[in-house]
């Protein structure tokens, strides 16, 4: 995918270079069309393709943990304890392994991707311009919403046939009862104790 985009960019560069060296060629009608393609259509397509590639890349697990403060969060996915919710989901492929962070932390609302990008830019600002936060002190603004869990679990037989889930379903949907902080599934990324926890090592 990136290779195709780079080929398109190189083609666009070659065309633009022609008009940089000899702009007078555009006097001919045929070259006017080529100039329109080379200086307007292709570059616009390159912007769209680049944006799409960068957005898809930013959904990858390895992209998220490429930030220093996120490294312990990446390690916490390997905690060898099924009571750790992110580790359990990651190790049992309940979320796509290469999109593990995004699957649970994406805002699935209509403006979600835009909000996520703005949050990402804010974190880049904190990392490179302001003071990077201590990994253990990082908290999700507004708390972790049940909607993230229900995006996958709602409608799943194993979830809805569970007596506790069935009894609490309405309050879970309305966020009155939190999946994480109401005492049911309260172990997420236990960064503070990570050094004491046993980590799972997948077979090579």
């Amino acid at each position: 995918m990136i290779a195709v985009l780079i080929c398109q960019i190189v083609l666009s560069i070659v065309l633009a270079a022609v008009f940089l060296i000899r702009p007078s060629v555009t006097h001919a009608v045929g070259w006017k069309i080529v100039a329109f393609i080379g200086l307007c259509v292709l570059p616009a397509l390159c912007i769209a393709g680049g944006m799409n590639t960068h957005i898809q890349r930013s959904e990858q697990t390895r992209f998220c943990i490429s930030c220093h403060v996120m490294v312990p969060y990446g390690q916490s996915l390997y905690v060898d304890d099924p009571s750790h919710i992110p580790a359990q989901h990651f190790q049992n492929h309940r979320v796509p392994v290469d999109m593990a962070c995004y699957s649970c932390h994406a805002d699935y609302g209509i403006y979600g991707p835009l909000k996520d990008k703005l949050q990402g830019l804010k974190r880049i600002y904190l990392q490179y311009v302001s003071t990077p936060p201590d990994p253990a002190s990082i908290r999700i603004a507004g708390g972790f919403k049940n909607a993230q869990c229900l995006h996958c679990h709602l409608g799943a037989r194993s979830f809805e046939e569970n007596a506790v889930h069935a009894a609490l379903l309405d309050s879970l949907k309305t966020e009155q009862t939190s999946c994480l902080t109401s005492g049911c599934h309260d172990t997420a990324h236990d960064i503070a104790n990570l050094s004491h926890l046993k980590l799972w090592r997948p077979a090579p």
Partner: protein
Amino acid sequence: MKISEIGIGRLLRISSFLVIVGLLLEIVSLLWFHPLSFVLFAFLAASLIGLGILVYLASLLFVAPPSAVNRE
């Protein structure tokens, strides 16, 4: 100075230069797997390419084509 006084050739050169620099930066951002690569793409590469496109479109709108006598 009005845009129409600059000349279509010069505007095309400026547009081409901006587009080429922007596209080269886009290639760098695509090959560099780092959170800053998105910033490089969104704030530099895409801006330069967009500016190059705008300069090209301005050359179409505001600059009169050279007369047949002046053609090379």
